[in-house]
């Protein structure tokens, strides 16, 4: 509340104050409308055959990438608050749930349009192929996170248990990026970038956690 007790109130608001006051006016539910747009647009283009000769490939990859990007956005909330005092925490649940929605969409496209419910092949994929195992396990770990992303669950579980469950996002992010890295036939820059970004975002938390333990 320090910002409100300034003695010289004609002083212009800093950027941080501006952003934080703007977030008071922009409701979180808006994200549930905005964030699905790129995925729906991609799907629409794929249906219209506007994504080149292999629309499935573009759609499947695109949905997976959007999921990774939203996971990054969700993991950025805390470091941004610590480092800049910009507080976007009220959007984090929407970001996380939309990341999960993209994972579900990606997985659905894989099942229905890519593998076309050939269960033999899918079962072999899930049990034998490392890149699918990473992707699949990331999805499974995210299920309880999505299911408990509501106020009732936080109240019922208590903040400590709830937080432990949601540490799963660290595994899911790294496994999701690893899934992308291993899917490529060679070491490719873009998937490795995702992995590196997650490593930084998680490493940051680890270092902070250790510092607090020592302090």
């Amino acid at each position, binding site marked *: 509340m320090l910002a409100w007790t300034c003695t010289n109130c004609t002083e212009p608001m800093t950027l941080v104050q501006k952003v934080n006051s703007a977030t008071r006016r922009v409701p979180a539910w808006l994200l549930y409308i905005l964030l699905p747009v790129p995925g729906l647009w991609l799907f629409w283009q794929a249906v219209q055959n506007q994504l080149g000769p292999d*629309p499935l490939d573009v759609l499947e990859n695109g949905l997976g990438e959007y999921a990774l990007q939203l996971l990054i956005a969700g993991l950025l909330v805390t470091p941004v608050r610590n480092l800049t005092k910009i507080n976007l925490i009220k959007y984090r649940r929407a970001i996380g749930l939309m990341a999960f929605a993209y994972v579900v969409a990606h997985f659905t496209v894989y099942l229905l*349009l890519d*593998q076309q419910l050939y269960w033999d*092949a899918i079962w072999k994929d899930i049990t034998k*192929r490392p890149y699918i195992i990473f992707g699949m396990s990331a999805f499974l770990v995210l299920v309880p996170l999505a299911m408990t992303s509501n106020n009732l669950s936080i109240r019922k579980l208590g903040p400590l248990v709830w937080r432990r469950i949601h540490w799963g996002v660290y595994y899911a992010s790294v496994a999701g990026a690893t899934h992308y890295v291993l*899917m490529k036939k*060679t070491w490719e820059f873009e998937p490795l970038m995702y992995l590196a970004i997650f490593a930084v975002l998680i490493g940051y938390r680890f270092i902070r956690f250790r510092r607090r333990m020592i302090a």
Partner: protein
Amino acid sequence: MYRHKTDLKYSDITPRNAFLNRRQVIAGAAGLAAAGSIGGAAQAKLMAKKGSPYSTSEDANSFEDVTPYNNFYEFGTGKPDPAKHAHKLTTDPWSVEIGGLVNNPGNYALEDILKEVTLEERIYRFRCVEAWAMVVPWVGFQLSDLIARADPMGSARYVAFETLHRPDEMHGQKSKSFPWPYVEGLRMDEAMHPLTILATGIYDEELPKQNGAPLRLVVPWKYGFKSIKSIVKITLTEKEPPATWNLIQPGEYGFYSNVNPEVDHPRWSQASHRPIGGGLFAKRVPTLKFNGYGEEVASLYAGMDLHKLY
């Protein structure tokens, strides 16, 4: 069973002439025609001999399916990358150095090679190791014709191929993750098989640069990466020559790399594939052993354990 439907039929494709005329009209309207820059772009039709018994009767993919979507890591790892960057490649002049165990070694100019052969159309199924497939109307000639001209010695058992190495024009070759230049190889009987061709065109047009201009190998019963592009060197050898993907990941890519639904790639099944060109909802198609060319080539591998020699 193998057939798939595309919206476009061979006969529906805009002929290249009409396409270029259209461009000329547009360019003319823009006042570029006066500069005379378009005239050079119009190429003569290759007028290849049609109706080869080796051609499939399946509907070929459209020119627009075949040319913007392929792997050619010399121009980047994404499938649209070759079409974006291959224009930088100089393909004229071009020559192929033929050497090793031959009696007529030398640097053969492309025009000289083409003078001695009859170009014919070969409509082949093309199966990528990534489990997608197309049907491509190649224009080319049998590799056996060129090898015969070089007059192989009796001791020659394999044929090694090499792609151009020119990082200035092929920026992908600046990447250290590949042992450039790209190399591939065939056993002598595979190389001499009538199905094996050197392609110089698609749809009676000169091969677009992204597809491996001006001269590439096509071996339709093997995964696509065996069909090495933009060839500058052919060497006949006694020992099995190296093959790039096999060098990088021997557990994933064998020397033979015959299309085989019974042998999975470690990262995906090869039992079926997605036909390109059928849109988002195209049905998967079961993959046939030797990509459906078993009748012609299965005998080459009699007695070999193809699970081990994949």
